[in-house]
C-alpha cells in the first residue's frame, strides 16, 4: 500500500457521498437522469486522484450503457445476464463506486473517524477485525487450494462426484484457521488494553481540508441538479 494519498477525502465526506447517492438514486423520478450522478462521482474521484476506481467503473458503466441501449433498441436478448440485472447494475453504479471507495479506505482512517464520532470501542474493534480479516481469508483459501492440489483433490472429477466432501475439505481448514485467528487476535487486543474504559483515540487524525469542502460541494450540487432535472418521485 502506498503512502496516504493527501487528496483522499475524509471518511466523513465519503459517507456523505454514499448517503446522498443512495437517497438520490431512490427518490429520482426519471431514471434517464441517473448519469448525472455517475458523472458527478467521476469528478469526485478525479479530485481524489483515485485512478484505480475510475479504471474499473468508467469502462463498466460505458459498457452497461451500450448493452442497455442495444437491448432496448434492437430487442437483442442478452445471453449471460438478464436485462434486469444489467439495469440494476447500471442504476446502482454510483452507489457501488461510493461504497467501493469506503471499503478500500485504510482501516486506520476509518477507525480514526469512528473514534472521532465517539463510537463504542467494540464497534471499532469489529470494523478493524473485519478489515484485516478479509485478506487473511483470501490467503487461507489459497493455502487450502494448494494443499488440495497436493493431495490430488482438486480434479474436476473429484469435485463433481463428491461435492459435499470437497466443500468440507475447503470449509473445515478455513473455519479452524478462523477460530484460531479469533483467539489470537482477541488475546492480542486484550493484553493491549482494548477493554480500557476510555473512548478510543487515534494516531491518524481524519483531518478535513479544502479537498473535503470541494468534495461536499460537488456532491451536493450534483444531487440537486439531478433532482431538478429528473424530478422527485411522488410517494403518496
Amino acid at each position, binding site marked *: 500500500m502506498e503512502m496516504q494519498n493527501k487528496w483522499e477525502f475524509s471518511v466523513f465526506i465519503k459517507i456523505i457521498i454514499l448517503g446522498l447517492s443512495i437517497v438520490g438514486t431512490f427518490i429520482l423520478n426519471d431514471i434517464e437522469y441517473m448519469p448525472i450522478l455517475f458523472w458527478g462521482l467521476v469528478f469526485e474521484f478525479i479530485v481524489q486522484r483515485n485512478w484505480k476506481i475510475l479504471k474499473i467503473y468508467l469502462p463498466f458503466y460505458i459498457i452497461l450503457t451500450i448493452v442497455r441501449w442495444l437491448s432496448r433498441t434492437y430487442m437483442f436478448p442478452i445471453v449471460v445476464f438478464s436485462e434486469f440485472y444489467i439495469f440494476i447494475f447500471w442504476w446502482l453504479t454510483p452507489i457501488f463506486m461510493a461504497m467501493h471507495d469506503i471499503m478500500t479506505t485504510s482501516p486506520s482512517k476509518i477507525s480514526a473517524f469512528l473514534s472521532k464520532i465517539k463510537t463504542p470501542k467494540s464497534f471499532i474493534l469489529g470494523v478493524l477485525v473485519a478489515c484485516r480479516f478479509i485478506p487473511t481469508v483470501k490467503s487461507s483459501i489459497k493455502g487450502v487450494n494448494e494443499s488440495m492440489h497436493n493431495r490430488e483433490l482438486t480434479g474436476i472429477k473429484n469435485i463433481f462426484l463428491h461435492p459435499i466432501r470437497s*466443500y468440507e475439505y475447503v470449509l473445515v481448514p478455513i473455519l479452524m484457521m478462523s477460530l484460531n485467528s479469533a483467539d489470537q487476535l482477541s488475546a492480542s487486543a486484550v493484553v493491549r488494553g482494548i477493554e480500557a474504559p476510555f473512548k478510543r483515540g487515534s494516531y491518524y487524525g481524519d483531518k478535513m481540508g479544502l479537498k473535503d469542502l470541494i468534495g461536499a460541494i460537488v456532491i451536493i450540487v450534483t444531487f440537486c441538479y439531478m433532482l431538478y432535472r429528473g424530478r422527485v418521485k411522488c410517494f403518496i
Partner: protein
Amino acid sequence: MKNKFSIKDIVTMVILSVLIVVLQLLVNAVSMVNTFFSLVLSSGIVCFLSAPIYVVMIKKIKKPFVTLVYTAILALLYLMMGYWFISVYLILVGLVCEIILYKRQIDKGIVMAWTFFSLAFVGTSMLPIWIMWDDYVKASLKGGMTMEYINSYKAYYTDPKWVIFIFIFAAIGGLAGSYYGNKLTKNHFNKAGVL
C-alpha cells in the same frame, strides 16, 4: 453479566459473520449468470453452504444476540449497496431468529432458526424486484420493450407454483445445511477440542 460479550466473543462473531457474508455474496454474484439459478435456487444453496459456519458461531459463543449481530452486519452491507429496505428487513429477521433460539435446546434451536432464516433469505432476492420493478418497467418501456417480455423476468415470482417451490427449496437448503452443520461440528470441532 454472564451474557455480556467478551472481546473474544466480539472478534469471533465478526470473523465468522464476515466469512458467512463473503460466502453469501460470492455465491449470489456467481449465480447471476443464470436467471433460474439466481431467482429460484440461489437462496437454498447459499443457506445450505453457509449453515455450518453459522452453527459453529452459535456453538462457540453460546450467548444471545449472536444471530442479530450477524444479520446486522449483513444489513450494513446491503445498506451500503443502497438496498436500505433489505437492511431493515434483515434486522427484523434477526430478531425473530433470536426469539426462536431463546431458551431452546441448542441443536434444535439452530435448525429451526436457520430454516426460518433461509425462508426469509428469499426476500433478499425478491424485495429488489418488488421495490425497483416500476422503475425498471418505466425505463424499459421507454426503450421500446414489450410488457410481455419484461414480465417474463418476473414470471418466477408471480406464478404461485414457482413461489411455493422457491420457498420450499430454500427451507430444505437451510434445514439440510443446519443438520449438516451440527454433524460437522460434532465430527470436527468438538472432536478437535475447539468448541
